[in-house]
């Protein structure tokens, strides 16, 4: 009975997990609390320690970068009284009253505030060269550079160094925790690890929520950045189909070393000028250019090595082995001990108690001749995963004259991933040239070339060709090393050996014989010319091209499952091209206190995509992969799409006295996607925006503590027709994959919409940017509210309508949220500096209207009626599924006869899959040449369903299935009596397998739905910059060496790997249903930068 009391009902377990979670918070928040206390103390400290009396201070003021003295620097007190200045060596001597707040200011440097309470000699005060925050220039839509203070909408800029501090396999991962309101949805599907960026939460029911990604003015989302799925591959591939590999896209391939900075324009207002595709915000990446400030050539060598290993495992049990219902013996195949017990995938078998049984012998691939000890292979299944390795080396050369600058870089990446025989390589070349031909004409160009290749990418998801499927099905009582010889003895190349249940495939066979290859070359680049007719009038003309060509191949051996008994060879050639040409005519004029800037422009966009797939799903000779070896007819699966978008737009900016700014924009797009083969009349749509910025600190006389204060407000509309063509006319696809002789057709499963309208997003935003104590403490706050109407939805309908889905224009989703970013210098004494940053964001949406439909099913999960449903009054990402039947007071109802939990027939609400809050906390400590950076981030309030949890529980693989083996278990809940009353459940069940299946198995979505809250120790970096003296003596300009870590720890109630998972779904990555995710990893790396 001990086990009975140990065991809890699932409701209680949830309570327990909440409790556990509170503990996580307590543990994780304590350092933050301590830090906040310290911060308070430091801010208060000057007054606490103030004393009266004159003191004398002597010392030197030096440049923080080169250590040289700064001459001519002025020292003032808090009343701005001049106290002294430095001599030509940077030395100073002055006297003041103890406890006076002193300011050391110098043009070109950030001011330093210090307070002294006693006389000191030999002080060294380091000044950092100023980054000129107040007049920071931001790259906005269409590459227009603006002063940050003139903008009426929220932007965040991330410097390139912040991305390379702790290099990630996919550089976008490094944006995590650095931008308030930025969400990353990760595929977790292999080394390329595709990531989708969502800004400010999902507001579009159709799932088209991704932020626009712009590299040097080239929009790459639907060109090289397009994720393309192979036809017929899904992550829930239980029909023995090929599993999808994550082939990545152009966004992953950008070399973080080449990134100068990334500007995130969060709201649609920011992106209004990008047109329909900017409705979800934009991430604008500017790559590095040559610098004319540098004398001569600058050569930088950057070398990086990192190791990654799994950072979190499911809690597997190693007390019971393969078998069912606590069987008394084990026998691989029938034998002297009795009938075979080795056919099951479950580990509800005999306890490891020192017995010996007839077990599998890998050498003979049959039952062993003698009984061998029945022992657990602790961590056996986990040992399948290796340590991943990534080596990145890059060299960049830059330089310039007064009129021409250039930068060139070459990077090589080699990756070996955590599963055997997987990984990729990448070479990229970047070139940037900028030439001032004469006073009026400037010509510039940036070109990035990438070549990425992989000999094998792992198939992701849940199906017999997947490694994680095997992970679930493997037994604690067996040694996976016994699988290394994966061919059946005597049938090499023709039949695969797998000893147990027939469902999973041998993981070594998958790794070495089920090959997914890819070679991709891509060029993104632009050429632009700017001509200044007069001082006021200028014209910029630009053409950008995003081009990629990829060849993929999938090889499958003989015996690769039901559908491919004779192997398979498939190839895809994918050609993608997007070309944009645009012009901008600009007129700037300053009339007394007013500045006027008017811009007019137009653009033409051409997008083309071709995928030609050839399939030979039966081979004459095994392991010979070519079309000539096809045993049957070659099947061709074509995929083509094409669309054009033409646009005209205008922008009017007004400024008054450097503190009041107003922007008005208007844009019309014509998109071919909204046209039909018969008409074009609703393919064009107009949308406006207006924004204002007011720099209060330049207008009012504010208290000295406020160094800068700006308030902003904006209103904007953005329309969109999406990027999927051919959804406006009814067409007949080829039936059954073209297998019918003479060609046959069928009706489409998705009903198109000939009256398709653009969706329209309207947003109101207000914000403030406040900087205190000489920019030592900065706040940036944004509040927004808006709605998205006329969404283009793929609505899952009752099939009795004759279709699986219909494309509709429906819905209004109201979206509102808050974003706050805080950064401050907490402590700066001498050479020591501690600064912190924090972000907080929350987004809430409410589905206000669905055109009269009470609910719209957006996505269905693999089991237990799990589905994402939009209901009026609900939120985006609401998860429904079957769950426990409960009494009115919330207790689980158990069947009196069987003792199993009773499951509802109807689907019930299980939570929302989008987290309610996200926040982050980062700290940087620097002391002399040392620097330490740590970053934590967290999310709260989301849930998701875990397929792996349900399956591991059903098969008795996890520790939470141990209670009740095999002394019986009583579920914590009630029985429903015949008279309608409830009484405490007292039924003991000994059928533990069935008990846990009812608790968390295939029929019970609630049982395997968990909170995805987490706190992650996201980044840490410790580096040392060699001092000028050392580098000069080595003939170097600079040298830095650093060690770093990523995703070091995760604190979360989520049971399996990473709560921040996403799932590949065709061309998208979705949240909500974990479907056999790969393990999450922790990375340690070493980084060396040398400037010649």
């Amino acid at each position, binding site marked *: 009975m001990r086990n009975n009391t140990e065991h809890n009902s699932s409701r209680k377990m949830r309570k327990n997990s909440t409790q556990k979670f509170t503990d996580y918070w307590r543990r994780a928040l304590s350092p933050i609390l301590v830090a906040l206390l310290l911060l308070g103390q430091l801010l208060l400290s000057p007054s606490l320690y103030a004393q009266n009396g004159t003191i004398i201070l002597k010392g030197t003021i030096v440049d923080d970068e080169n250590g040289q003295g700064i001459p001519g620097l002025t020292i003032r007190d808090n009343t701005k009284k001049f106290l002294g200045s430095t001599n030509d060596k940077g030395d100073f001597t002055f006297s003041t009253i103890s406890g006076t707040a002193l300011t050391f200011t110098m043009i070109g440097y950030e001011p330093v505030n210090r307070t002294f309470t006693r006389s000191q000699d030999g002080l060294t005060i380091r000044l950092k060269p100023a980054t000129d925050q107040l007049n920071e220039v931001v790259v906005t839509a269409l590459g227009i550079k603006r002063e940050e203070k003139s903008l009426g909408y929220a932007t965040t800029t991330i410097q390139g160094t912040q991305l390379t501090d702790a290099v990630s396999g996919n550089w976008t991962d490094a944006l995590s925790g650095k931008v308030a309101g930025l969400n990353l949805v990760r595929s977790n599907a292999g080394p390329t690890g595709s990531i989708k960026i969502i800004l400010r939460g999902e507001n579009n029911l159709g799932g088209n929520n991704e932020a626009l990604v712009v590299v040097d003015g080239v929009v790459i989302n639907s060109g090289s950045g397009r994720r393309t799925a192979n036809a017929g591959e899904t992550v829930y591939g239980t029909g023995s189909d090929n599993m999808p590999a994550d082939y990545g896209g152009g966004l992953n391939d950008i070399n973080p070393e080449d990134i100068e900075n990334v500007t995130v324009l969060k709201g649609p207002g920011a992106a209004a000028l990008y047109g329909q595709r900017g409705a979800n915000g934009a991430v604008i990446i500017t790559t590095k250019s040559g610098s004319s400030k540098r004398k001569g050539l600058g050569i930088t060598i950057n070398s990086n090595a990192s190791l990654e290993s799994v950072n979190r495992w499911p809690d597997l049990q190693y007390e019971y082995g393969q078998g069912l219902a606590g069987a008394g013996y084990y026998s691989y195949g029938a034998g002297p001990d009795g009938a075979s017990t080795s056919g099951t995938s479950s580990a509800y078998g005999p306890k490891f108690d020192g017995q010996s049984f007839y077990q599998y012998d890998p050498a003979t691939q049959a039952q062993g001749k003698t009984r061998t000890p029945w022992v657990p292979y602790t961590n056996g299944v986990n040992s399948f995963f290796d340590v991943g390795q990534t080596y990145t080396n890059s060299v960049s050369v830059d330089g310039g004259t007064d009129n021409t600058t250039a930068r060139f870089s070459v990077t090589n990446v080699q990756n070996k991933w955590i599963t055997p025989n997987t990984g990729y390589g990448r070479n990229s070349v970047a070139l940037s040239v900028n030439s001032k031909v004469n006073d009026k004409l400037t010509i510039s160009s940036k070109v990035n070339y990438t070549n990425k290749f992989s000999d094998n990418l792992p198939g992701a998801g849940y199906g017999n060709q997947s490694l994680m499927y095997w992970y679930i099905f493997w037994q604690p009582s067996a040694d996976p090393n016994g699988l290394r010889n994966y061919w059946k003895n005597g049938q090499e190349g023709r039949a695969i050996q797998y000893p147990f249940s*027939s469902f999973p495939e041998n993981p070594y066979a998958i790794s070495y014989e089920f090959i997914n290859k890819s070679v991709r070359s891509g060029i993104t680049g632009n050429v632009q010319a700017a001509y200044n007719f007069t001082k006021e009038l200028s014209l910029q003309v630009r053409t950008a091209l995003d081009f990629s060509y990829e060849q993929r191949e999938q090889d499958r051996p003989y015996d690769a499952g*039901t559908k491919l008994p004779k192997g398979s060879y498939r190839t895809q050639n994918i050609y993608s091209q997007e070309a944009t040409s645009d012009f901008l005519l600009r007129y700037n004029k300053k009339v007394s206190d007013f500045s006027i800037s008017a811009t007019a422009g137009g653009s033409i966009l051409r997008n083309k995509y071709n995928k030609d797939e050839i399939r030979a799903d039966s081979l004459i000779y095994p392991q010979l992969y070519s079309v000539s070896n096809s045993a049957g007819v070659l099947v061709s699966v074509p995929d083509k799409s094409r*669309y*054009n978008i033409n646009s005209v737009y205008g922008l009017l900016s007004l400024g008054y006295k450097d503190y009041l700014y107003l922007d008005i924009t208007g844009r019309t797009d014509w998109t071919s996607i909204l046209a039909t083969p018969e008409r074009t009349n609703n393919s064009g749509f107009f949308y406006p925006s207006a924004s204002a910025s007011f720099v209060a600190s330049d207008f009012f006389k504010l208290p000295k503590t406020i160094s800068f204060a700006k308030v902003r407000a904006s209103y904007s509309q953005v329309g969109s027709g999406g990027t999927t063509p051919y959804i406006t*006319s009814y067409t007949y696809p080829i039936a059954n994959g073209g297998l019918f*002789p*003479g060609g046959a057709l069928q009706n489409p499963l998705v009903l198109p919409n000939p009256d398709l309208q653009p969706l329209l997003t309207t947003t109101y935003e207000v914000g403030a940017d406040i900087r205190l104590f000489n920019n030592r403490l900065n706040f940036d706050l944004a509040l927004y509210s808006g709605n998205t109407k006329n969404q283009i939805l793929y*609505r899952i*309908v009752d099939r009795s309508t*004759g279709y699986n889905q219909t494309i509709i224009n429906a819905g209004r989703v109201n979206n509102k949220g808050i974003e706050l970013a805080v950064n401050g210098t907490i402590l700066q004494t001498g050479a020591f500096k501690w600064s912190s940053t924090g972000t907080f964001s929350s987004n809430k949406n409410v589905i206000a209207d669905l055109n009269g439909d009470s609910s719209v099913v957006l996505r269905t999960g693999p089991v237990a009626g799990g589905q994402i449903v939009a209901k009026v009054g609900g939120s985006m990402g609401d998860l429904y599924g079957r769950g426990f039947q409960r009494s009115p007071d919330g207790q689980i109802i158990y069947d009196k006869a069987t003792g199993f939990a009773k499951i509802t027939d109807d689907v019930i609400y299980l939570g929302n899959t989008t987290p309610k809050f996200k926040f982050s906390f980062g700290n940087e400590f620097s002391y002399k040449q040392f620097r330490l950076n740590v970053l934590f981030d967290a999310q709260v309030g989301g849930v998701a369903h875990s397929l792996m949890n349900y399956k591991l529980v059903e098969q008795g693989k996890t520790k939470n299935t141990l209670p009740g083996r095999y002394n019986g278990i009583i579920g914590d809940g009630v029985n429903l009596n015949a008279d309608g009353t409830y009484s405490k459940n007292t039924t003991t069940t000994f059928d533990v397998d069935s008990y846990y299946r009812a608790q968390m198995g295939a029929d019970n979505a609630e049982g395997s739905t968990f909170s995805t809250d987490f706190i992650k120790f996201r980044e840490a970096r410790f580096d040392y910059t060699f001092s000028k003296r050392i580098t000069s003596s080595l003939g170097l300009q600079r040298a830095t060496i650093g060690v770093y870590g990523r995703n070091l720890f995760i604190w979360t109630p989520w049971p399996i790997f990473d709560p921040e998972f996403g799932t590949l779904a065709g061309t998208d990555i979705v949240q909500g249903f974990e479907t056999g995710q790969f393990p999450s990893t922790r990375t340690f790396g070493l980084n060396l930068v040398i400037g010649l």
Partner: protein
Amino acid sequence: MKKIIYSTILTLTCSVMVLTSCKKDFTEINTDPINSPTSTPAQLLAPALVNTVGAGMLRNRNFNNELMQVTVSLSDADAQVFRYEYRRTFADYLWNSWFVQLTNFKDIYTKAGETVTLNKSYQGIALISQVWIFSMLSDTYGDIPYTDALKAREGILEPKFDTQKAIYLDMFAKLEEANTLLAANTSILASSDPIYAGNVSKWRKFGNSLYLRLLMRLSGKAEVSATVIAKIKQMVDTSPGTYPVMASNDDSAILRWTGTGAYTSPYVTNVREQDWRAPSISSFFIDHLRDWQHPVLNITTYGKGGVNRWGIAQGKSGFQGVPSGYLPGAGIATESYFYSSASLVSSALVTNLQNDPLTGMILNYAELNFALSEAAAKGYIAGSAENYYKTGILNTITTWLPNWPNATASTTVTTPATITDAAFTSYLSAADITWNNSASLDAKMEQIHLQKYYALFLVDLEQWFEYRRTGHPVLPKGAGLKNGGIMPARMTYPVYIQSANPTNYKSAVAAQGADEIYTQVWWQKP
């Protein structure tokens, strides 16, 4: 300088004008380069038939056969169909597969009715196919969307459910219309018709035989029985010329799998070999065949390479099955099972049902005879129940062994076997299944339906439908049965319907009864 400015502005203005007019190309750009804007009935028919039959076959195997004791899964796990307990997720497959195929048949009917592509035969075939699918859906779920169904293009995304009664009455009207349309005998493209290779008169016979199947299904329902029985009598006795029905096995509606391309058996493409072999055959199913010495079990005369016609492997002690409905933990071990396509016996591939051409059963001649035998026994029609009974038994055998009573290898057969042949008579008496005209009606029903059970082997869910209607053949009941030991009366509606069509779902449940497997459908209630 000014000149440059003006010319630039002029160029830009022009390009703006060009841009706005650029949407003229949009019609062409947004025309799908792969899919076809139109289709013909001939292009649509074959895939729609193949996909409909395929879905029925898969559920025949893992649902009907488990409930009806053809096979028994060896599992102690929860929610086993053979224990009258199945997961709600079972409900989605047929609903989702069959309704979208109805869209194709509806489209064929519409297209074949248009002036350009006018073809009465395709219209008739489309109507028969619609009735066939709608009847299977309604017999599986009860009330379903019918009048409002398949109208998404007309804007109905949440269709109302119709009562089963209304559906049946309209289906009868459709079959009348089909019979009239097909009487014109307009020719169709042979390659578009994988069932009868373009033989329109056979489609007409199939339609009327289907009509009789459905009339019989309602014949015991008090509120309609009089009209239904009158109709049966009219079709069989009064005007058989107007209602031609199947007259031999050649008329059977079977989609024959050739094994190439789209005509590969769904049992090959969708069932893994190890899964195909996994369920054991139930004692109920195999004991009769063995005791009767049914030729499909016979290896020596009618088998090939040591394997019988139905590809059934022997158990530990010959042809033996396992009892269905056993209790979990009863320690049942596998006995006879169906060989899979790569099974070897003495190193040669064997005859097996996994890749057999005949598994695409829709409605066969034997089934029709048993229906008529029942009608005669109940006095609905004038003919001899015994003769129909015998014809049913004989044609069940000759469907699988056309040369019977000659050996498979025989090439000397000139005339097909008849019910008066000595070999057949001696088969009946040896098997002790000779017709007993003096038996009670219930005993006669058992006799007919036990044989009909084998005629319905592999025919979608018909064994289950007939059992629910008649209670025959009487199946043994194991101790492990759930649902009160009562045969489930329906499949529940797919769970997603609760969200995708909530209002109509609720009304349907209110009208029909709880959405449970024990809620009887209309024709099942007395």
